[in-house]
């Protein structure tokens, strides 16, 4: 039991620091560790957990809580969350403070202008990668494009748009 909790902490602590570009990037590594290396679950169970994590509120990286729970109950879930969020959040905290202290500096204005287009590009890229990962067929793209237009051109709350997506998929499927 303690061994499993220790393994969860080390696994997600390490993976979180490798997860450049968000949690999605390390999903294949998580699967290899949980299914093949530590054998906490079968491949099918991992797939179920992944689908579940996408449907739940909160960040997609919450999948680590479900993996931890499956491996070692509540304590496992806590260890997985601590590993996933602890080191990465500390790092970003110190970055934010340094950034904030530099708010009057000329270089920060330059850096801000330089980072803007990169942020927008990475945002579009994550949308494209996610669409690809979820086997987007024609109906799925229809939902995606309709949601994009609605949310760009109107001030509608996103929750009904998400629910509408589910309803259209049910009717079309």
């Amino acid at each position, binding site marked *: 039991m303690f061994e499993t909790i220790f393994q969860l902490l080390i696994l997600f602590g390490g993976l979180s620091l490798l997860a*450049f*570009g*968000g*949690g999605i990037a390390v999903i294949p590594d998580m699967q290899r560790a949980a299914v093949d290396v530590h054998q906490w679950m079968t491949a099918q169970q991992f797939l*179920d*957990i992944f*689908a*579940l*994590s*996408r449907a*739940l*509120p*909160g*960040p997609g*990286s919450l999948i680590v*809580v*479900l993996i931890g*729970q499956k491996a070692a109950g509540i304590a496992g*879930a806590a260890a997985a*969350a601590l590993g*996933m*969020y602890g080191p*990465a*959040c500390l790092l*970003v905290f110190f970055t*934010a*403070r340094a*950034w*904030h202290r530099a*708010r009057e500096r000329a270089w920060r204005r*330059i*850096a801000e*202008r*330089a*980072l*803007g*287009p990169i*942020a*927008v*590009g*990475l*945002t*579009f*890229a994550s*949308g494209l990668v*996610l669409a690809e990962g*979820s086997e987007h067929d024609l109906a799925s*793209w229809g*939902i*995606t494009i*309709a*949601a994009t237009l*609605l*949310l760009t051109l109107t001030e509608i709350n*996103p929750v009904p748009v998400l629910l509408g*997506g*589910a309803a*259209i998929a*049910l009717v079309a*499927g």
Partner: protein
Amino acid sequence: MAQMAKKNEPPSLTTLCWCFAVIGIQSFGSGMSAWIRREVVDRRGWIDDPAFAAGLALSQISPGASGVNLAVFIGATLRGWSGALATFSGMMLPPIAIALAAGAAWAAARNNAMLDTALNGMGSAAVGLILANGLRLMRRNIRDVPGALVLAGTTLAVGVLHLGLLPVLAVALPVSLALNWKR
């Protein structure tokens, strides 16, 4: 941004925690930064768009879950240590509790096909939420041709060609900095 921070009182810890709890509960899939921008920039005006975009880029560049990073970044910017704790716990604790309950329910009974279809549709709409956020960010962060080129190059390299984030940034960051240096 500097003037705004001087004029406006930073939000209280309770307000911060509550605001991010609402964001955490409402966001599905991976549209977290869209929800954060909507609340923090559009509705509450705590941070302006260029400052948000820079924070977003730094959160995406830093390792870890970028939405969670962004929450910590904004909390730390507005209120330091306690602000970061407020945004993190507000955003994470309710979804973690829900995930644990759902995980226990899943262990008892498996998903059925109808649920899978509904989840897929929801996921497709969530991709739209991310793309719409990109379009909105574009309006106030892309002002010239060099900016548009950096945007297009980053999108192509990561989103279409699937190049790793590290090599892409190793090129995009110096290029973007050089393009903005003299202005």
